[in-house]
């Protein structure tokens, strides 16, 4: 019954969702000269900087596989999470003027942000694949399983977005706290380094991080040309759906109270 009501409200508000996403695109690029091109250029340039810093200055490398591809795979996915969860967090507070005047299902705001950044994410796959081809990393049939990791990443991010957007209504300090958490989270996720650099005793703590598994899933395929293990498949799906469930419960329980915190 719950799923049915979500479906019917999505049907009803599909056009609004579409409008919110296209609004984000228009506003983002309206006053810039290069416009949508920035969606491609921005990740390429920031990733180039990171790649230069980490491979040349810190001399990071990954044995057997191309470090650049290794880094970018992790970075592209982590950046999606970081940007989407951040925008989702502020989406409800930013739309208070609307929420206070018209009834709109409130989950639509974090959802539209996750989708908006998702489209940008798909665009960043273009430079990623360009690098894969340029560096001569061989393609393989398992690439067709990559969307599985991306969908899990999306579901996880949306779940986090629901939690964060609800919490930040009551506790505006979240905006600052989360910035710090994100920095820490980024260094605790094996993006620039291999998890095997961590001593075995600590590795299991690193593996509690769902993002590690989504990135690992993609790396297994892109870099090592192998099918991710059934365990990886299961962990990805369970962590994503679990987070979404928690998000839905937290959001649903609190959404009627949002209006008092305007």
């Amino acid at each position, binding site marked *: 019954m719950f799923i049915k009501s979500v479906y019917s409200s999505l049907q009803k508000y599909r*056009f*609004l969702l579409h*409008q919110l996403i296209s*609004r984000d695109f228009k506003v983002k690029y309206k006053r810039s000269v290069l416009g949508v091109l920035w969606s491609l250029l921005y990740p390429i340039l920031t990733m180039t900087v990171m790649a230069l810093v980490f491979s040349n200055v810190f001399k990071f490398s990954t044995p057997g596989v191309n470090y650049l591809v290794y880094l970018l795979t992790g970075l592209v996915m982590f950046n999606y999470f970081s940007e989407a969860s951040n925008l989702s967090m502020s989406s409800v507070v930013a739309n208070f003027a*609307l929420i206070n005047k018209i009834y709109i299902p409130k989950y639509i705001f974090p959802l539209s942000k996750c989708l908006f950044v998702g489209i940008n994410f798909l665009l960043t796959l273009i430079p990623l694949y360009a690098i894969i081809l340029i560096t001569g990393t061989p393609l393989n049939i398992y690439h067709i399983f990559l969307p599985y990791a991306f969908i899990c990443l999306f579901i996880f991010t949306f779940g986090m977005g629901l939690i964060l957007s609800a919490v930040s209504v009551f506790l505006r300090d979240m905006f600052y706290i989360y910035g710090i958490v994100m920095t820490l989270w980024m260094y605790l996720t094996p993006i620039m380094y291999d998890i095997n650099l961590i001593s075995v005793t600590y590795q299991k703590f690193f593996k509690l991080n769902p993002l590690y598994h989504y990135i690992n899933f993609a790396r297994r395929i892109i870099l090592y040309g192998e099918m991710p293990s059934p365990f990886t498949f299961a962990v990805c799906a369970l962590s994503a759906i679990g987070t979404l469930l928690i998000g839905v419960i937290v959001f649903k329980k609190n959404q009627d109270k949002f209006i008092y915190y305007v």
Partner: protein
Amino acid sequence: MIKINNVSMRFNLGIEKNFSLKLFFINLFKLKKEKKEKKEFWALKDVNIEVQKGEVVGFIGSNGAGKSTLLKVVAGVMKPTKGSVERYGNICPMIELGAGFDMDLTARENIYLNGAILGYSKEFITEKFDEIVEFSELRDFLDVPVRNFSSGMVARLAFSVATIVDPEILIVDEILSVGDIAFQQKSENKMRSMIEGGTTVLFVSHSLAQIENLCDRVVWLENGTVKKIGEPKQICEEYKQYVMN
């Protein structure tokens, strides 16, 4: 038809005090009794109103009497603390127009965005697009970002988008005073034609002349409770007397 059953609405006035980290920690060390001491404010207290289909009901009362809160509860923006609201028919809420506008988008883009926020479909907006533009008289400014509009122009555009539907229930909060005199006349005429079409209207205004002109019944709210309900002429007269004293 709208049924407002025993609706009460409570606000905590001191609400933000409890939600900074600093005060959160201070509160940890406070006695339990002190903590519970919140300033409560009942914006509505046991309000019972029944509105028939096609009826036009006006709401009057001083600032802070609970008029806007009541309309928001009916519109579904707020859930009542106690009681319930039954509504039959689709609602068009016109509470502070233009809330859904994005100042960086053009008028054309905002018509679609605002329409979507009001729950219209894409086909519907496309079909009614010319009508909206015609009514707002802003055809020459369609591709100008709304941030360059005057506030009167924004209000005209918002009114035109909001009134393009034929809703069964129309909720109007002080919006007939937007735009210049010519547009005010035009929007009042539009309201009239909607009323004649059988729309149920809930209407808040500080203009007693407007209320007497348009409404079948008037509700006088005072401190969150219904003070009087009845004939527009009679209630408005009594209200005037009350305010004068």
